[in-house]
């Protein structure tokens, strides 16, 4: 499997929260060769299963990405909008976008020219309500194609940086999806005889409504959420971030399962997989939080891929970290640990 191309394919298909169908199809096609069963849930999540012995484990990554949502017509070919997920308002001035109406419509987020900017507004990011999307269309044409509620995705100019770093939009959490698909391939190669459910969930960026619902019909004994987390960039306290390219971050938090955390650490060491530790003092802000409350409660672990510039059009990861995340996932599943069965190490 060419991970770089898979990541390119997955990040070039838009899937703003609530509109994940297209990217779900790409992800399903990529996962299909490695699983025995594949289906979509009522909310649009994808579940693929390797059938084997129990107890089953759930591996979760989310399909959706942050974006915008059209709220009203602004006149003269402009659209008013609000955020869909935790959009960073500092990147929006002059941003190129695609409005997903009955057809895709190209647009540009308006930016106030300097000679019109008020002195007191200098140095401030414009709030969403002061921005609009310029489609260049007549209002009549625009109203035929685009309606309030339509999602808007941001256009990226993908970049390959030094040291295997790649930047694009929606690496959060397509990088996690790639890691899961690669783990499925590794498990297939290893003739895995344990039951593994790969769930590609939806709507994570708008509240995580789908994670527990997706896992509800699965009779699992443990789950591992795979998401992205902060890699260090200028101005970031080293306490708050890991280093890009130095391996997956194994999460530790009050809500996460401690035996599973310890187990993943020792499995990483046994298999010589580089890893970093991410300490969080309450919830994790990932699907791990919701998965712990699935049914009667699940022991949950968290692995995060280090990512620079989260929630922008230049989210940056390394393929090496994704590969090592997949290796750690596969090794953890194959180890068949007591921790996965809910007991102590």
């Amino acid at each position, binding site marked *: 499997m060419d991970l770089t191309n898979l990541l390119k394919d997955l990040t070039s298909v838009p899937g703003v929260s609530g509109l994940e169908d297209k990217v779900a199809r790409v992800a399903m096609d990529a996962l299909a060769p490695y699983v025995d069963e594949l289906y979509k849930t009522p909310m649009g999540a994808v579940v693929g299963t390797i059938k084997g012995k129990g107890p089953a484990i759930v591996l979760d990554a989310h399909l959706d990405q942050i974006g915008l949502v059209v709220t009203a017509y*602004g*006149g003269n*070919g*402009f659209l*008013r909008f609000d955020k869909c997920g*935790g959009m*960073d*308002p*500092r*990147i929006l*001035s*002059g*941003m*190129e976008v695609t409005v997903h109406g009955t057809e895709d419509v*190209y*647009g*540009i987020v*308006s*930016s*106030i*020219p*300097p*000679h*019109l900017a008020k002195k007191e507004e200098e*140095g*401030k*990011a*414009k*709030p969403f309500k*002061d921005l*609009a999307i*310029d*489609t*260049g*269309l*007549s209002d009549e*044409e625009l109203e035929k194609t685009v309606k309030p509620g339509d999602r808007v995705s941001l256009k990226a*100019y993908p*970049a390959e*940086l*030094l*040291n*295997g*770093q790649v*930047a694009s939009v929606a690496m959060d959490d397509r990088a996690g999806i790639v890691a899961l698909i690669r783990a499925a391939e590794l498990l297939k190669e290893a003739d895995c005889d344990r039951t593994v459910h790969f769930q590609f969930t939806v709507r994570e960026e708008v509240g995580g409504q789908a994670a527990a619902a997706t896992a509800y019909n699965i009779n699992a004994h443990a789950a591992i959420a795979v998401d992205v987390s*902060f890699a260090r*960039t*200028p*101005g*970031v306290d080293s306490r708050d*971030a890991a280093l890009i390219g130095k391996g997956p971050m194994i999460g530790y938090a009050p809500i996460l399962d401690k035996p599973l955390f310890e187990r993943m650490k020792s499995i990483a060491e046994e298999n010589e997989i580089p890893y970093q530790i991410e300490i969080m003092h309450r919830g994790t*802000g990932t699907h791990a939080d919701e998965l712990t409350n699935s049914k009667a409660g699940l022991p949950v672990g968290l692995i995060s891929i280090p990512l*620079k*510039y*989260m*929630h*922008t*059009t*230049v989210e*940056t990861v390394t393929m090496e970290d994704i590969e090592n995340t997949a290796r750690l996932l596969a090794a953890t599943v194959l180890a068949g640990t007591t921790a996965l069965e809910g007991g102590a190490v």
Partner: protein
Amino acid sequence: MTLFEDIRILCELPGVSGREEPVREYIISQLPEGVSCETDALGNLYVEKKGAKRPKNKVVLFAHMDEVGLMITYITDDGYLKFDEIGGIDPAVLIGRTVRLECGLVGVIALKALHLCEGDEDKKIPPIRELCIDIGAKDRAEAEKHVALGSYAVFRSDYVEFGGSRVKMKALDDRFGCALMLDLIRSDLEYDTTFVFTVQEEVGARGAVAGAYTTAPDIAVILETTTAGDICGVEGERRACALGDGPVISYMDRGTVYDHDLYRLAMDTAKENGIPAQTKTLVAGGNDASSIQRTGAGSRVLAISAPTRYLHSPVDVLDKNDVENMQKLLNVLLPKLAQ
């Protein structure tokens, strides 16, 4: 080659102020046979195009080849590139963007993640001095292998036609003017005409000084783009000018008081020929005219511009209908100026 193919090719070329070679080389490569050109010490390009007749007034057309961009000024211990802007750039249009460096590498510009911001940090656009370019280097030594201080970076932007008649690209300011001049040079002109493709407009209309000195125009016509503020939430005179309402003819801006007779002649000529034209409802902006009007013994100046949204960003936007009307106006106006 259509005008818009030329615009696309010209805009794709990197050519920040002082580093206009790729643009100049392309223009020279496109000159028809028998048309002579010269380059001066600063890099301005002069083209003499013979017409059917000799003019009474020496008419010289000007467009600038340079674009706004970034210049690398420092490399941090961690391998990040600090930069200053070449020409005026709003830092807001740099955040979350990628740029192409002179060495060929691509870099990204972004801030500390939203989630890690404290106080109102997540609502602030820092000044350019606080931004940096990330090329993925491990440290300064690795970055230094690729990037030299003083080297440039330009926006990455795809040429896009959208919304019926709109064009979006970086550097439309003023490769659009260069393309218009190239189109005129390729066509049959009634009178001998001189064309100057200038350098260093964005850093103070500097190339135009030598350009005007060398050509000593009776009448200088500047072909440019000018800021349109006709966007959602901006009303009345603050809109300045509007896309689709025709070429903009200037009476005054922040650098120039234009020749009033020429301003009136251009406006009247548009009206007589049923060509839409407009002027700006604000005294704002500036162009090479500011230098040209005062150079040597002075020249009468006229500026005709395409109204353009989001100038000095990766997403300059103009309207094809305005471009077409600007061509129509020049076709009827240039012979009048020469007589």
